[in-house]
């Protein structure tokens, strides 16, 4: 049950008929795993914390470097050389002491990823490499956990949501088959700071929609954003019947309540 203080704190959610007290309670009861406390993870975590998601789990193996502070806004000058997971936890609890935050200052191996995905209501991925995105996809497929994926480089960004609880939902590997090929990342290319802010915030919005059941999440849709020209494209994405990642999960019922 939400306390009087919480009813006040979250009143601007509770005023929304799509969220109401039930939706806010669902957020308080939810556990969200966020992979990567970088440019995308920072605003995603901050909005999820402020929005009253009851339990956040942050995984990131890196320490905060000076070049991160241009965009990774959950970290501050005094976070330099600290583990990102610990720095994020400290600042999220300062934002909202009402919630629980677990810091996992490491890259999760397949077993731990599987355990964490199984315990999570939703998984958010905003890591800087392709292999961890595919690992998150596999863990979400095998545990039937929705996955909100975004990426941003230079002036371009992409976002989609995959929900293995739905038989016709595509997965991340339906979109990009797993491979050793190098995808673009911002270490060599650069990225304009508020772009990751927009997309990380959008990921938090997707999470809130998935948890409260409000509106229509981006399942089966990929959105591409061109920040230089302010243009969004929406492309429909179907499940690929030959996708090696999700084909084996089709027959089994992965739905949870």
């Amino acid at each position, binding site marked *: 049950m939400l306390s009087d203080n919480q009813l006040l704190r979250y009143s601007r959610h509770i005023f929304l008929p799509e969220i109401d007290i039930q939706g806010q309670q669902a957020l308080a009861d939810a556990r969200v795993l966020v992979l990567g406390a970088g440019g995308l993870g920072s605003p995603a975590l901050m909005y999820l914390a402020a929005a009253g998601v009851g339990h956040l789990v942050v995984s990131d193996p890196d320490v905060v470097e000076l070049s991160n502070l241009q965009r990774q806004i959950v970290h501050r000058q005094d976070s330099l050389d600290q583990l990102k997971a610990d720095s994020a936890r400290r600042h999220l609890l300062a934002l909202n002491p009402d919630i629980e935050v677990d810091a996992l200052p490491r890259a999760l191996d397949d077993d731990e990823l599987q355990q964490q995905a199984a315990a999570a209501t939703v998984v958010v991925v905003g890591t800087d490499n392709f292999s961890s995105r595919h690992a998150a996809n596999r863990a979400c497929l095998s545990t039937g956990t929705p996955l909100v994926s975004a990426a941003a480089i230079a002036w371009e960004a992409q976002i989609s949501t995959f929900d293995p609880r739905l038989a016709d939902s595509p997965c991340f590997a339906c979109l990009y088959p797993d491979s050793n090929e190098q995808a673009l990342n*911002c270490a060599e290319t650069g990225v304009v700071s508020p772009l990751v802010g927009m997309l990380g915030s959008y990921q938090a919005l997707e999470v809130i929609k998935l948890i409260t059941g409000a509106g229509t999440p981006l399942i089966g849709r990929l959105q591409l954003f061109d920040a230089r020209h302010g243009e969004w494209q929406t492309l429909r994405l179907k499940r690929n019947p030959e996708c090696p990642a999700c084909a084996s999960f089709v027959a089994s019922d992965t739905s949870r309540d």
Partner: protein
Amino acid sequence: MSGQQFPAYLLRAFRVTAMPTVKMTPHLYRFFPQLEGQTVTVPAGSVKEALHAINEQAPGFTDYILDDRGALRRHVNLGINDSIVFDRKTLSDRVPEDGTLYIFQALSGG
């Protein structure tokens, strides 16, 4: 000139053939600057034909997005109008006359 600006009856009346338009991730302009700021059009036909038509305008383009067997590289994706293309191997999907072909790339930055 893009056919999309004209109603179909005018196109028929003047026997103008509409050409599919190509839109691509701005990242590709780094490698093929001659395409930047251009309205790139290709003849209607298969995705494969469309990509080879772009290669005429920007030599090396197909080498960049296709592997040595002519299949789409794994970090590249295509959309026709508002749908993502599944046939990454033979590139048989048809790009219609009034269609748009999107070429985009996997991003992993976070």
